Protein backbone atom coordinates (compact mmCIF):
# COMPACT_ATOMS: atom_id res chain seq x y z
CA UNK A 1 0.00 0.00 0.00
CA UNK A 2 1.14 3.55 -0.75
CA UNK A 3 -0.07 6.97 0.31
CA UNK A 4 -0.99 9.38 -2.49
CA UNK A 5 -2.93 12.60 -2.87
CA UNK A 6 -5.71 12.79 -5.46
CA UNK A 7 -6.94 16.10 -6.87
CA UNK A 8 -10.18 16.52 -8.82
CA UNK A 9 -11.22 19.26 -11.24
CA UNK A 10 -14.45 20.63 -12.68
CA UNK A 11 -17.18 17.96 -12.88
CA UNK A 12 -14.99 15.45 -11.01
CA UNK A 13 -14.60 17.90 -8.13
CA UNK A 14 -18.37 18.41 -7.96
CA UNK A 15 -19.15 14.70 -8.17
CA UNK A 16 -16.57 13.82 -5.50
CA UNK A 17 -17.70 16.75 -3.35
CA UNK A 18 -14.07 17.65 -2.70
CA UNK A 19 -11.01 18.96 -4.50
CA UNK A 20 -8.26 17.03 -2.71
CA UNK A 21 -8.11 13.80 -0.74
CA UNK A 22 -5.38 11.67 0.77
CA UNK A 23 -5.62 8.00 -0.09
CA UNK A 24 -3.93 4.83 1.03
CA UNK A 25 -4.16 2.53 -1.94
CA UNK A 26 -3.04 -0.73 -3.46
CA UNK A 27 -3.15 0.91 -6.90
CA UNK A 28 0.19 0.71 -8.68
CA UNK A 29 -0.67 2.76 -11.78
CA UNK A 30 -2.67 5.91 -12.55
CA UNK A 31 -5.21 3.70 -14.29
CA UNK A 32 -5.68 1.53 -11.19
CA UNK A 33 -6.23 4.62 -9.08
CA UNK A 34 -8.77 6.07 -11.54
CA UNK A 35 -10.73 2.82 -11.47
CA UNK A 36 -10.72 2.96 -7.66
CA UNK A 37 -11.77 6.61 -7.27
CA UNK A 38 -14.23 6.61 -10.18
CA UNK A 39 -16.09 3.67 -8.63
CA UNK A 40 -16.24 5.43 -5.26
CA UNK A 41 -17.22 8.87 -6.55
CA UNK A 42 -19.33 7.80 -9.52
CA UNK A 43 -17.19 9.35 -12.28
CA UNK A 44 -18.80 8.25 -15.55
CA UNK A 45 -16.22 9.46 -18.08
CA UNK A 46 -14.12 6.83 -19.81
CA UNK A 47 -10.39 7.08 -19.23
CA UNK A 48 -9.77 7.49 -22.95
CA UNK A 49 -11.35 10.95 -22.81
CA UNK A 50 -9.83 12.06 -19.53
CA UNK A 51 -6.29 13.02 -18.66
CA UNK A 52 -4.08 12.38 -15.69
CA UNK A 53 -1.10 14.30 -14.35
CA UNK A 54 1.36 13.12 -11.74
CA UNK A 55 3.23 15.73 -9.74
CA UNK A 56 2.26 18.51 -12.16
CA UNK A 57 3.26 16.62 -15.34
CA UNK A 58 0.77 15.06 -17.77
CA UNK A 59 1.26 11.31 -17.59
CA UNK A 60 0.18 8.12 -19.32
CA UNK A 61 -2.55 6.07 -17.63
CA UNK A 62 -0.02 3.27 -17.40
CA UNK A 63 2.40 5.42 -15.37
CA UNK A 64 3.49 3.88 -12.07
CA UNK A 65 2.58 5.49 -8.77
CA UNK A 66 5.01 5.90 -5.93
CA UNK A 67 4.69 6.95 -2.30
CA UNK A 68 3.74 10.61 -1.94
CA UNK A 69 2.64 11.20 -5.55
CA UNK A 70 0.07 13.91 -6.23
CA UNK A 71 -2.31 12.61 -8.91
CA UNK A 72 -4.49 15.09 -10.81
CA UNK A 73 -7.62 13.79 -12.54
CA UNK A 74 -8.89 15.91 -15.43
CA UNK A 75 -12.34 15.28 -16.96
CA UNK A 76 -12.74 15.81 -20.73
CA UNK A 77 -11.55 19.33 -21.52
CA UNK A 78 -13.86 21.98 -22.93
CA UNK A 79 -12.06 25.25 -23.52
CA UNK A 80 -13.08 27.93 -26.00
Amino acid at each position, binding site marked *: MINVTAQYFAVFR*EQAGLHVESLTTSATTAEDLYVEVSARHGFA*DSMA*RCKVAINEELAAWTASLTEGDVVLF*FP*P*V*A*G*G
Partner: protein
Amino acid sequence: MSFEITDQRLDPDALKNALTREAAGACVSFEGWVRDHSDGEAVTALEYEAHAPLANKEGQQIFEEAAERFDLLAAFGRHRVGRLEIGECAVWVGVSAAHRGVAFDACRYIIDELKQRVPIWKKEHYRSGPSGWINSVTGSASADRETPS
Protein backbone atom coordinates in the same frame (compact mmCIF):
# COMPACT_ATOMS: atom_id res chain seq x y z
CA MET B 1 4.66 32.83 -29.62
CA SER B 2 2.93 32.66 -26.27
CA PHE B 3 -0.18 31.42 -24.54
CA GLU B 4 -1.56 32.43 -21.16
CA ILE B 5 -4.49 31.66 -18.94
CA THR B 6 -5.79 34.87 -17.41
CA ASP B 7 -8.57 36.02 -15.11
CA GLN B 8 -8.43 39.48 -16.68
CA ARG B 9 -10.75 40.77 -19.40
CA LEU B 10 -9.28 40.18 -22.88
CA ASP B 11 -8.54 43.21 -25.05
CA PRO B 12 -8.57 41.99 -28.69
CA ASP B 13 -7.34 45.32 -30.10
CA ALA B 14 -4.29 45.41 -27.87
CA LEU B 15 -3.55 41.74 -28.55
CA LYS B 16 -3.84 42.27 -32.29
CA ASN B 17 -1.49 45.25 -32.21
CA ALA B 18 1.19 43.02 -30.69
CA LEU B 19 1.17 40.95 -33.90
CA THR B 20 2.34 43.85 -36.06
CA ARG B 21 5.50 43.11 -38.07
CA GLU B 22 6.90 44.94 -41.09
CA ALA B 23 7.18 41.63 -42.99
CA ALA B 24 3.57 40.71 -42.25
CA GLY B 25 1.06 40.76 -45.10
CA ALA B 26 -1.71 38.98 -43.22
CA CYS B 27 -3.20 38.87 -39.76
CA VAL B 28 -5.88 36.40 -38.73
CA SER B 29 -7.43 36.34 -35.30
CA PHE B 30 -10.19 34.32 -33.68
CA GLU B 31 -12.38 35.41 -30.78
CA GLY B 32 -14.53 32.94 -28.91
CA TRP B 33 -17.50 34.76 -27.37
CA VAL B 34 -19.98 33.78 -24.72
CA ARG B 35 -23.34 33.28 -26.43
CA ASP B 36 -26.78 33.32 -24.92
CA HIS B 37 -27.89 29.83 -25.83
CA SER B 38 -26.70 26.25 -25.89
CA ASP B 39 -28.56 23.19 -27.04
CA GLY B 40 -31.94 24.87 -26.74
CA GLU B 41 -31.24 26.31 -23.28
CA ALA B 42 -31.02 30.03 -22.56
CA VAL B 43 -27.55 30.65 -21.13
CA THR B 44 -26.99 33.49 -18.67
CA ALA B 45 -23.24 33.13 -18.03
CA LEU B 46 -20.28 30.80 -18.39
CA GLU B 47 -17.77 29.80 -15.81
CA TYR B 48 -14.32 28.64 -16.91
CA GLU B 49 -11.93 26.69 -14.76
CA ALA B 50 -8.37 25.69 -15.66
CA HIS B 51 -5.42 23.98 -14.13
CA ALA B 52 -3.29 27.00 -14.92
CA PRO B 53 0.24 25.53 -14.72
CA LEU B 54 -0.55 22.66 -17.08
CA ALA B 55 -2.89 24.72 -19.25
CA ASN B 56 -0.13 27.27 -19.82
CA LYS B 57 2.36 24.53 -20.56
CA GLU B 58 0.11 22.65 -23.00
CA GLY B 59 -0.95 25.90 -24.66
CA GLN B 60 2.66 26.94 -25.08
CA GLN B 61 3.41 23.56 -26.62
CA ILE B 62 0.64 24.09 -29.21
CA PHE B 63 2.06 27.47 -30.19
CA GLU B 64 5.51 25.93 -30.56
CA GLU B 65 4.05 23.21 -32.80
CA ALA B 66 2.33 25.89 -34.88
CA ALA B 67 5.61 27.77 -35.24
CA GLU B 68 7.23 24.61 -36.61
CA ARG B 69 4.38 23.77 -39.00
CA PHE B 70 3.63 27.24 -40.33
CA ASP B 71 5.77 30.14 -41.49
CA LEU B 72 4.55 32.61 -38.87
CA LEU B 73 5.89 35.99 -37.87
CA ALA B 74 4.02 36.18 -34.58
CA ALA B 75 1.30 34.29 -32.70
CA PHE B 76 -0.38 34.81 -29.36
CA GLY B 77 -3.26 33.28 -27.43
CA ARG B 78 -5.16 34.02 -24.23
CA HIS B 79 -7.94 32.13 -22.45
CA ARG B 80 -10.08 33.64 -19.71
CA VAL B 81 -11.04 31.83 -16.54
CA GLY B 82 -13.69 32.75 -14.02
CA ARG B 83 -17.26 33.89 -14.62
CA LEU B 84 -17.98 35.48 -18.01
CA GLU B 85 -21.15 37.26 -19.06
CA ILE B 86 -22.90 37.05 -22.43
CA GLY B 87 -20.84 38.70 -25.19
CA GLU B 88 -17.51 38.56 -23.38
CA CYS B 89 -14.44 37.19 -25.13
CA ALA B 90 -13.43 33.85 -23.60
CA VAL B 91 -10.57 32.93 -25.89
CA TRP B 92 -8.42 34.88 -28.32
CA VAL B 93 -5.92 33.54 -30.86
CA GLY B 94 -4.08 35.70 -33.37
CA VAL B 95 -1.28 35.16 -35.85
CA SER B 96 0.60 37.22 -38.40
CA ALA B 97 2.40 35.91 -41.47
CA ALA B 98 3.62 37.07 -44.86
CA HIS B 99 0.60 35.56 -46.65
CA ARG B 100 -3.05 34.90 -45.78
CA GLY B 101 -3.14 31.16 -46.46
CA VAL B 102 -0.61 30.41 -43.77
CA ALA B 103 -2.28 32.83 -41.37
CA PHE B 104 -5.75 31.25 -41.78
CA ASP B 105 -4.39 27.71 -41.49
CA ALA B 106 -2.26 28.44 -38.44
CA CYS B 107 -5.02 30.25 -36.56
CA ARG B 108 -7.43 27.38 -37.23
CA TYR B 109 -4.86 24.81 -36.17
CA ILE B 110 -4.12 26.62 -32.91
CA ILE B 111 -7.73 27.16 -31.79
CA ASP B 112 -8.70 23.58 -32.68
CA GLU B 113 -5.77 22.14 -30.73
CA LEU B 114 -6.40 24.44 -27.75
CA LYS B 115 -9.99 23.23 -27.51
CA GLN B 116 -8.96 19.58 -27.68
CA ARG B 117 -5.93 19.52 -25.41
CA VAL B 118 -5.71 22.31 -22.85
CA PRO B 119 -7.07 21.50 -19.37
CA ILE B 120 -9.86 24.05 -19.28
CA TRP B 121 -13.45 23.30 -18.34
CA LYS B 122 -16.64 25.22 -18.98
CA LYS B 123 -19.81 25.33 -16.95
CA GLU B 124 -22.97 26.81 -18.42
CA HIS B 125 -25.45 28.64 -16.23
CA TYR B 126 -28.98 28.40 -17.55
CA ARG B 127 -31.90 30.77 -17.20
CA SER B 128 -34.00 27.77 -16.24
CA GLY B 129 -31.92 27.24 -13.11
CA PRO B 130 -29.45 24.37 -13.05
CA SER B 131 -26.02 24.52 -14.57
CA GLY B 132 -23.98 21.95 -16.45
CA TRP B 133 -20.36 21.17 -17.23
CA ILE B 134 -19.80 20.97 -20.95
CA ASN B 135 -18.21 17.91 -22.40
CA SER B 136 -15.90 18.59 -25.32
CA VAL B 137 -16.54 15.20 -26.83
CA THR B 138 -20.30 15.36 -26.97
CA GLY B 139 -20.23 19.18 -27.01
CA SER B 140 -22.96 19.31 -24.44
CA ALA B 141 -24.06 18.36 -21.00
CA SER B 142 -26.99 16.51 -22.46
CA ALA B 143 -26.79 15.78 -26.19
CA ASP B 144 -24.66 15.65 -29.30
CA ARG B 145 -24.00 18.96 -30.93
CA GLU B 146 -21.27 21.29 -32.10
CA THR B 147 -18.89 22.30 -29.33
CA PRO B 148 -19.79 25.78 -28.10
CA SER B 149 -17.76 28.70 -29.02
